[in-house]
Structure formats: structure tokens, C-alpha cells
């Protein structure tokens, strides 16, 4: 069994969002970088659990990024995984990134590819579907549970207003969300061990991006809250009905 987990580097969830260069670039000053929470808490931790259950499992991580992603990749390796592969490229186009991951997945012959449901910076929700299509594999998105029985996976996925349970024979690409696993904190042994795990750097394959970022903008500021007295909460309902026309 070979598992590939896709790891993206994103700003910390509390990072201040601002832009530079005439609103064309994210302002990175003072920003803490983390593993995209969906990739870490759900995709990676579930993959580690599968490896704990079957220690013969080979677990690799893949990142598409420049050398400044290495610290985040080492953090992921501290949680678990045998080795990491970084495709040495800088791009914000989903198709370009998915093409690089698909190339790594194809040459590595993985049975299972896990991604997070989306990154918390670009919110594309696109990588898993694109990788699956490029590999000609089935894709189960927004999975909240994943179990293996031999080479058949049983997966619970989100649908509108509920969930669906499905079965699929490996290989498969799965995007992971809450429910898959619980967040873990790396221990000292993991952190020490991560330093010596292989982090292979490979050069990207030539692919044209299909989209490009023109500019960023911040949402308009709120006018300010209108407070209603706790002694007269009926007034809130009146305002919502007559002023905001929201109910």
C-alpha cells in the first residue's frame, strides 16, 4: 500500500490579510506559515492512522513550492510519513499545481492520493479533482470518513443536507475534511526524526497555467454594529423585519 498526501503551505489562520505591489501580491511580512489545516488535520493524520494500522504502508508527502516551504514540510514529516517530495516551482494556478502532483503520483504508483478539501488561502477545492482526472482515477470529494478493507475503500462524503456512503476499489483520489481524523501535535521523537527523513526536490514538468491572478481586494468595511438593549430584544426582531428586511 502506497499513500501520497498533498501538503500545501498557507498563512496561519490568524494571519493579517493585506496586499502589496499595487494589490497584486499577498503581504508576507510577519506572516506565520503553517500546513494547510485540511491537509494536516484530516488528510495527513488519517493517512498516518492507516499506516499505524498497517505498518507496511508507504506514506509519502508531496508539496509544490519553493525552498521556503521546506520548514512546513518538515513539520508535516514530524507528524508522520516516510519521505517528502517537493516539486520546485512557484505557481498559484490550480491546474499547474495539479499537473505536478499528478506527475509525482503517476511515477510513484500510489494506491491512494489524499488532499485537503481546499486550501485556506486560495479556496480552490480543485486540486483533488484535477489530479484524479489527469490520472484517470475515480474521485471522492469532501470525505469525512475513510476506511480500508483490503483494496476496497469505504468512504463517507458530504452531500447537500446529509452524507453518502460509498465504496470504491483502489486506486482513488480523496479530498478530506472534518471528521476524517483529529488534530495531532507532533512529539519530540517525531520532530527529531523528521530532520533525517528524506526530502527529495524534483524539478517541475513543463505545463502552461490556465489562469493568472490580476489583483486582490479587501471586502468593504462594515458600517458598525447597531446595538439593541437586552431588556427589549423584541426591537431586534422589528429591525430585522422592517429595516434589514431579512426576516
Amino acid at each position, binding site marked *: 500500500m502506497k499513500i501520497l498526501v498533498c501538503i500545501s503551505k498557507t498563512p496561519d489562520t490568524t494571519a493579517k490579510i493585506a496586499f502589496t505591489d499595487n494589490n497584486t501580491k499577498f503581504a508576507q511580512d510577519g506572516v506565520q506559515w503553517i500546513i494547510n489545516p485540511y491537509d494536516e488535520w484530516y488528510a495527513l493524520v488519517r493517512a498516518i492512522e492507516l499506516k499505524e494500522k498497517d505498518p507496511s504502508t508507504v506514506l509519502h508527502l508531496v508539496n509544490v513550492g519553493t525552498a521556503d516551504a521546506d520548514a512546513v514540510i518538515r513539520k508535516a514529516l514530524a507528524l508522520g510519513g516516510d519521505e517528502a517530495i517537493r516539486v520546485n516551482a512557484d505557481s498559484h494556478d490550480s491546474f499547474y499545481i495539479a499537473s505536478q502532483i499528478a506527475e509525482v503520483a503517476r511515477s510513484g504508483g500510489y494506491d491512494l492520493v489524499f488532499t485537503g478539501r481546499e486550501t485556506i488561502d486560495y479556496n480552490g477545492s480543485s486540486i483533488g479533482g484535477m489530479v484524479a482526472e489527469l490520472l484517470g482515477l475515480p474521485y471522492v470529494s469532501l470525505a469525512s470518513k475513510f476506511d480500508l478493507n483490503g483494496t476496497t475503500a469505504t468512504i463517507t462524503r458530504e452531500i447537500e443536507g446529509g452524507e453518502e456512503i460509498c465504496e470504491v476499489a483502489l486506486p482513488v483520489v480523496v479530498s478530506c475534511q472534518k471528521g476524517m481524523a483529529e488534530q495531532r501535535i507532533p512529539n519530540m521523537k517525531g520532530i527529531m526524526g523528521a530532520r533525517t527523513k528524506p526530502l527529495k526536490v524534483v524539478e517541475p514538468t513543463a505545463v502552461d497555467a490556465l489562469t493568472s491572478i490580476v489583483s486582490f481586494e*479587501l471586502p468593504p468595511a462594515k458600517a458598525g454594529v447597531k446595538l439593541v438593549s437586552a431588556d427589549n430584544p423584541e426591537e431586534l426582531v422589528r429591525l430585522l423585519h422592517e429595516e434589514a428586511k*431579512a426576516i
Partner: protein
Amino acid sequence: MSVLIFIDQAEGHIKKAALEAMSYGAKVAAQLGTTAEGIVLGSVKEDLAALGKYGVKKIHHVNNAALDHFDAQTYTHAIAEAVKASGADVVIFSNNVDGKAIAPRLSAQLKAGLVSGAVALPDTSNGFVVKKTVFSGKAFANIAISTPLKIVALNPNSYKVETADGTAEVAALNVTVETPKVKVTAVNKVTGEIPLSEAEIVVSGGRGLKGPENWGMITDLAHVLGAATACSRPVADAHWRPHHEHVGQTGLAIAPNLYIAVGISGAIQHLAGVNRSKVIVVINKDPEAPFFKAADYGIVGDAFEVMPKIIAAAKKVKGMA
């Protein structure tokens, strides 16, 4: 040349998200001086010609029961055939659960640039630039698509449904459908509840409610307002509420017309999932709760005292008392 809209359905009924996608697609078509067409997959229980009122002129229908269950691979294949049949140069999806699974596949198959999470009509004055949410709702990005075929996945609740007189021509489209590799073995729908992603009003509770036994005030108000219920991350993590109700940066991002947060302090991660709501109401006993800074209306007070009065007043407004 045309704009093709994927008309998403569940159990034979057209989803609200699809009505938004049609209204949006019809406007894009008008902007480009072309017509809007739709693609429907699987058996339906509705009159497809009537969908013309949302601005689509022609509907390609693959009336094949093999497509009654959603599967990303077979759906993508069928939609790719419809792209050929309609000669589309723009394809519109809703960025809902199904759209998130198939739009990226279609993009990779046809090498067509995709913008997912669109919140506005494209700017076609110089190329094709689409505004989308980034940083989990804390900002927007304008993305240019450089390929001849363009795909846009529209965020639910971002574009108003528009109707006019009109009937669509319905044309059967024959597509060879393979047996899906993903086999659905069970569907667990929470019946009688409004799906969070489609809800116009959402009532949400946080740790301030002290325990799951106090959720009656949330569900009661939701029932009166025809709203969906949601919760903050600590509440889902503590298993007070199911995790599909978790809204926020690592849960679901929503954009209802009205979001009522009760006993939620408004951590930045929570705000990221709800700050595109049109009207935000915060009820919290802590006047320093950061959520008040992002709110339109607020009450500084104890939810246990305030909520019963709000529910009673809402019942009056709704003619239920």
C-alpha cells in the same frame, strides 16, 4: 458559441444553486452576445422546458438512470459531451458539493481555465476576469482565464435568482455512460432540515450555550424563521452538534442573507466562514466579544434570557402566534 450551465439536481429536483447558476449564466451569455444553454443529467421530476424562465434557451438532457447517482467521473464525461454539442465557450457550475467535484475534472480534461468560488459576473471588457473569494472570505482575487474555453463555479448565495418569460427547447443528448467506479451504498439525509449551504437564514450557536441540552433555543428560532442551524468549531469538536454544522475557516463557508450568532465570540477563524453573510446578528453577554465588530445588529445580553423573547417576537412577525 454559447454559455453552458450545469443544472444540478437531486432526486429529480433542480437545486436552488442551479437556479442561481442559470440566472448568472444567462447574464454572462447576454454580456458576450450569445445564448445560454443547460445540461441536465439523470431522471428528473420537473418540467425542463419551464427552466426557460431562468434565461436558458435550450436544455440538453441526458435522460439516463445510470446518472441518477452523482459520480464525478461519469458526470464529467457527460458534461464534456454537452460542451461539444452546444459549442460552449463558457461553462458555469455552482460551486456546491457537486460542482466542487466535477468542475476541476472538466477543467483538467478540456484544459479549460477554472475559477471556483466566483462571487460576481466576469469582467469581459478586456479578456475574461472573474472575482472570487480567497483567504476564506477575508479577501477577493480577480482571476484572468487565458484559455479559449472558460469554466466558472459560482459560490452559492452569491447571485440573485432572476426570472423572465421564456420556455427552453429540450433536446435529448445521448451519451454512453459507463458504470461508475464509485458505488453509493447508503444515503443519510437529515430530513426536514434545510441544507446549510442553501439556507437564506442561518441560526448558529457557540460555547456560550454551555451544552447540547440547551440547543432548543437555536432549533426553535431556526424553525420559526425557516432557517438552517450551524455551530462554531469548539461545539462541533465537543460533539455537541454534528460536524457538518461547523461553519468557519476549517468548516463550511456560508453566505446567507441573515446569520444569527448566539454565544459565539467571533474568533477570526469563525468570521472567515461567515463574513460574506449579508446581515450579521450577534447575541453575546461579553461586550468585548470580537464578533460585535463584524456585526450589523447586536445584543449584549444573556442568551438564556434574550432568546425566548426573540423567538416569541419572531413568531408574531411570522404569524405563528
